[in-house]
């Protein structure tokens, strides 16, 4: 229990040396700093991972010069981006143009807040966790739309519109597949969802419908993060860089960062909802809760890897194929699946260990 | 979800089923049998209307959200009948305009959805159901108003309707929230004892009134009326003018006579003022209209002012006379709108001067029109007279003689513009009269029903007695 006690210790210590208001302020600042760090580190790490995985798939080495095994490559990229000039387009809507990154970053950050890294490492265990996640993740698309629209660039605009139609379409499937699982748990609170999984991960509890829901969730989650094969938003061969064509330097980095964090979030949610989050498989390390973070990250990274795998496996979809996939396949499947799950729960056919 | 529940919801369920059947029809229809939707919808809805006359038990559902009793049930039947007439009268237009564009089914589905909303509205037992009913009845209408997508005016009507209705319902909503704040419930039954006079409740009542005032097109909320009536397809205009208005008045009456009864000394004055304003404004604006639809729009504003005369009483007599008047008003206004519809569908003419010499070419249509207008004006022996007379009696029973006096002055003003139409049809001769044409079976049935209603409702008194007997259950 050591690493988790730290927070409590700090908490107690803070409140013992300072007046209450100041203490909580400091504590909050600490939390913010910790999460910002996670945010940045995760982002940088994922970018690196992506490049390495891509290289691995293509039988190349990938970044390997900066730092040991190229580990500092993305760090260097970040510094480079920081020093780049910030240019803007003429006639752009300056206010919205500058506002857009806030939307994407804040929504990603807030989504991160509700992710349970472990039983104790959980900043914001709200009772409507999943609902909150669905809600907050749809704010990101506003940033994308604003960015595209305010850039005064046709590519950006088209990219943004495509992104809009794609994100909102697939959001339905994300929501519905998560709801399918909520039917089993009867709760939206992420900690409770994990609690339920102590008697078996949900993907096992709900067997067939849960598997369908998982697949749907991964597909639509990938689409929602605008990743390949659903990346016609930023299809470089058609649209330059898509909605962030006119963003440079640090401002571009925000979108880039947010995209990877979103990928992490999607994977984390999938890991939490379907694979028991920080629970160890079959409870093998139940006695050592410190390993929760490890299990959580392991599962998440596995799913992240899966998403990267998609990228190099499937060709990019055309916009009509993309919408057909969602509206004519995923959505009806999801609706039926929901009913199936409801039936399962009603008839008590779920599996419990 | 047992049988008894379903039986209480019978009207709504059957409406919903019809809408779904039509939806299925649309999904599986092909180009050849698409036109069949008109007959299908009308026959189904006719059955629904006929079945509605079966007795229904009294009861509550969903913990009091939905309630029904003989009075509400009867009013639903009135609405059904009205909508049936509207559908019959619109059949030809749908066939001519919408079926080729492949949009015929939607017309019926939206219309029935709106009716469904109204039925929930008048059956509501709490403000949530009330709000949902209100919105469900308005939104499809906005879509319908904008239904002739190739006409600018139709879109204009649609946007005006949706924006102003949204404003009104927003204000109502705010009023409901304040009412909820002051009394802690949204259920009528619980509110009934909980309302007391304090500034918050009064404010809540006034705000709440806005939404219904909008639907009834009382004067501060009437701005949309004429434009929407003119721009929207005629069937929609007639629906707006009678069905949705009638239902709104009915629920307004229920709410103000039961829930808000403790504030009666306040809303009496409010109604008094609005009644006078509405009558005068509606009538004065109607005087100068040249477009038949606008003309009927203002006339229907004025009629709303008359209806307030009955609402002001807060008694059983008021309830009975108002319902009776609405029933008559449905028939009269639909007769007038029906003729406008028939002529517009056939020739596209909607101006008053186009009607000159109509009697010499289309005597039957002009007779129907004359009956309808006389009924609207309140001339015996057609039904409208009885409706108005009883409304005035209701107002006079509370001692509002001066209000009645103002109302009769308005009746005279209104007679002038109704006679303008009669003058055009009967007195004038025209170089280019509307040529003779025969109506479709549906239109004929639609018009004949209205004529029977206009002639029979007043002279045949058991109808009023029945309404009166049911009305006494409200208080």
């Amino acid at each position, binding site marked *: 229990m050591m690493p988790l006690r730290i927070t409590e210790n700090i908490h107690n210590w803070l409140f013992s040396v300072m007046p209450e208001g100041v203490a909580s302020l400091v504590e909050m600042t600490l939390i913010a700093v910790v999460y910002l760090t996670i945010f940045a580190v995760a982002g940088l790490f994922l970018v690196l991972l992506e490049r390495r995985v891509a290289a691995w798939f293509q039988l190349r080495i990938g970044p390997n010069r900066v730092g040991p095994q190229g580990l500092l490559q993305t760090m260097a990229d970040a510094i480079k981006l920081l020093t780049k000039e910030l240019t803007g387009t003429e006639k752009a809507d300056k206010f919205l143009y500058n506002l857009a990154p806030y939307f994407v970053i804040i929504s990603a950050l807030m989504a991160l807040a509700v992710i349970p890294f472990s039983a104790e490492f959980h900043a914001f265990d709200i009772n409507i966790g999943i609902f909150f996640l669905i809600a907050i993740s749809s704010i990101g698309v506003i940033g994308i739309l604003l960015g595209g629209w305010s850039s005064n660039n046709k590519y950006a605009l088209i990219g943004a519109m495509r992104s809009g139609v794609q994100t909102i379409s697939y959001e339905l499937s994300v929501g519905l597949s998560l709801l399918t699982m909520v039917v089993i748990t009867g709760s939206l609170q992420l900690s409770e969802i994990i609690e339920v999984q102590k008697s078996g991960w949900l993907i096992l509890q709900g067997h067939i419908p849960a598997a369908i829901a998982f697949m749907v969730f991964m597909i639509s989650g990938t689409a929602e993060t605008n990743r390949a094969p659903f990346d016609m938003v930023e299809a470089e061969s058609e649209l330059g860089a898509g909605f962030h064509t006119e963003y440079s330097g640090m401002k571009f980095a925000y979108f880039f960062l947010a995209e990877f964090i979103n990928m992490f979030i999607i994977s984390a949610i999938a890991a939490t909802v379907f694979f028991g989050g920080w629970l160890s498989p079959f409870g093998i390390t139940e006695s050592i809760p410190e390993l929760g973070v490890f299990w959580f990250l392991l599962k998440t990274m596995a799913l992240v890897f899966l998403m990267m795998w998609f990228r190099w496996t499937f060709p990019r979809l055309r916009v009509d194929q993309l919408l057909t996939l969602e509206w004519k396949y995923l959505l009806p499947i999801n609706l039926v699946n929901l009913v199936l799950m409801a039936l399962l729960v009603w008839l008590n056919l779920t599996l419990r260990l | 979800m047992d049988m008894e529940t379903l039986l209480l919801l019978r009207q709504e369920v059957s409406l919903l089923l019809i809408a779904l059947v039509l939806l299925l029809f649309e999904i599986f229809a092909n180009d050849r049998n698409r036109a069949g939707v008109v007959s299908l919808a009308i026959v189904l809805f006719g059955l629904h209307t006929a079945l509605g006359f079966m007795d229904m038990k009294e009861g509550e559902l969903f913990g009091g959200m939905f309630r029904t009793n003989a009075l509400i049930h009867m009013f639903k039947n009135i609405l059904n009948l009205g909508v049936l007439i509207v559908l019959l009268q619109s059949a030809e237009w749908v066939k001519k305009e919408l079926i080729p564009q492949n949009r015929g089914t939607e017309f019926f589905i939206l219309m029935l959805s709106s009716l469904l909303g109204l039925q929930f509205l008048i059956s509501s037992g709490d403000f949530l159901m009330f709000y949902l009913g209100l919105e469900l009845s308005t939104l499809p209408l906005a879509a319908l108003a904008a239904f002739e997508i190739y006409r600018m005016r139709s879109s204009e009507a649609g946007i005006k309707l949706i924006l102003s209705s949204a404003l009104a319902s927003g204000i109502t909503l705010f009023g409901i929230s304040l009412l909820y704040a002051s009394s802690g419930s949204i259920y009528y039954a619980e509110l009934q004892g909980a309302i007391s006079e304090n500034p918050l409740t009064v404010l809540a009542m006034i705000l709440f009134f806005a939404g219904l005032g909008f639907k009834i097109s009382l004067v501060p909320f009437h701005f949309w009326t004429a434009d929407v009536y003119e721009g929207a397809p005629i069937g929609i205009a007639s629906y707006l003018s009678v069905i949705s208005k009638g239902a709104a008045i009915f629920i307004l009456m229920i709410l103000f006579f039961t829930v808000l009864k403790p504030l009666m000394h306040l809303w009496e004055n409010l109604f008094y003022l609005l009644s006078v304003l509405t009558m005068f404004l509606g009538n004065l604006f109607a005087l100068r209209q040249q477009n038949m639809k606008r003309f009927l729009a203002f006339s229907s504003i004025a009629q709303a002012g008359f209806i307030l005369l009955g609402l002001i009483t807060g008694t059983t*007599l008021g309830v*009975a006379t108002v319902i009776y008047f609405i029933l008559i008003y449905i028939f009269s206004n639909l007769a007038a709108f029906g003729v406008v519809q028939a002529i517009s569908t056939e020739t596209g003419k909607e101006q008053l001067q186009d009607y000159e010499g109509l009697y010499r070419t289309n005597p039957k249509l002009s007779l129907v029109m004359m009956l309808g207008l*006389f009924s609207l004006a309140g*001339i*015996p*022996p057609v039904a409208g*007279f009885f409706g108005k*007379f*009883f409304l*005035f*009696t209701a107002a*006079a*029973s509370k*001692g509002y*003689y001066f209000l*009645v*006096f103002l109302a*009769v*002055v308005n*009746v*005279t003003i209104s*007679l*002038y513009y109704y*006679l303008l139409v*009669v*003058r055009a049809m*009967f*007195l004038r001769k025209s170089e280019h009269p509307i040529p003779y044409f025969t109506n479709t079976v549906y239109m004929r049935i639609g018009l004949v029903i209205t004529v029977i209603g206009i002639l029979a409702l007043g002279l045949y*008194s058991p109808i*009023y*007695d029945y309404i*009166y007997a049911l009305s006494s259950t409200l208080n």
Partner: protein
Amino acid sequence: MDILSLFIVFPLLTVLVLLGAKSLKQARLIALAGTIVQVGMSVNLLFAYLRERSVNDEIMLFTRDLVWFKDFNIHYSIGVDGISVALLILTSLVVLAGVFISWKMEELPREFFISLIVLSTGVYGFFISLDLFLMFVFFEIAVIPMFLLIGIWGSGPREYAAMKLTLMLMGASAILLVGILGIYFNSGADGGPLTFNILEIAKVQIPVEAQKLFFPLTFIGFAVIGALFPFHTWSPDGHASAPTAVSMLHAGVLMKLGGYGVFRVAMYLMPEGTLHWSWFFIVLAAFGVIYGAFAAIRQTDLKYINAYSSVSHLGLVLFALLMLNKTAWNGAIIQSLSHGFMTALFFALIGMIYERTHTRDVTRLGGLLKVIPFISATYVIGGLASLGLPGFSGFVAEMNIFVGAFQHPEISYRIASIFAVSAIVVTAVYILRVVGMMLMGPLKENSLTPMERATWYEKAGIFLMLLPIIGIGVAPLWLSEMILQSIQPFIQGVL
């Protein structure tokens, strides 16, 4: 079917049959048959009434009472007394004469006769109803066909006239409605059930304050159709534009509704109100009498002359009614009848003259006695009756009125009476002026064309009007007796 309901049902049946008529010939035959039967019915009613009256001293005879709207206590309640019977006979005769006069109605004949008969139904119903609501219904039924009759078949500014007439009369009826409602809500004796029945309300004392409030409303409501000054303006325009038969019916019958209503409703039910307001309305009525007479002098259009003389004569009726005594009332009712026949006769004759000369302008006519002697002669007779020559009905009526008026104890009323009497002189002036200009003297251009003598149907119409004028004039006591008998209960009520 009782003898009175027949008066409503039969005309409606006639209308139904008329709907099937294809041509002018069919239409006028059906209308003629229908109206002849109506005359038969009314004559039959007269004898039945006289028989019944000798054994029965109820206020109203042949009453019938069916509940209509029970919550409002509205009944289909009918019954007649002598006054109603007399007016019913007047109506049926004028309608029949109207059908004769309209023998050559070319334009939309079917609709014309239907409107005419609907109008007469309204009038019949009005005269026989004992229920205020029913009365009001028939009142409006009688007014509305006028719009079509003047608007479609009229001449000159017919649309304007039709609109003005309809709106003024309907406006009046609207005011009347307030009055009726006022009466209704004060008709419950000590919290008893409210009623529209005239006889029952008469038994109840309506609170004096209410009477003072609602009497003027009711009075004006009815008096407008009786052409009370200053609400008479619809009448000349309406008459001038209306087709002949309609003018006859209008002046002969419809305007009587006013006097009858004032008498039977306003004054009977609200005696205190009457006493309180009578001075005001007497001034108006007297002024109307004089004004009508002087206005008639100034006119050159025959119809306008007759219209203003109607205003004058009917002003006299209201004037007499307000004098509140038996003799005056008797005179008022005889005046109603007499004026009904007389003015109908005039309008019929004016119509015939117009048909032949195509003008109604007196200054352009002259020497008609030479070319159309029958019509001219009857015009002279009508004129003499109108200015109150003994031997004709006008004399009996005006005699009674002025005698009654002078019986009034108050000096101010007598002064008003003197003014009203002076109108007779003026009447003589305008009647004789017209006769002199139009019938005597040399022929003028409009009179030169060869003219058709009066046809058989025209003569029939004229005789129908002429006979009662002479009849009343020669044997007034018979009529007076019937009327006085009927006035009796009113006397007790009012005085």
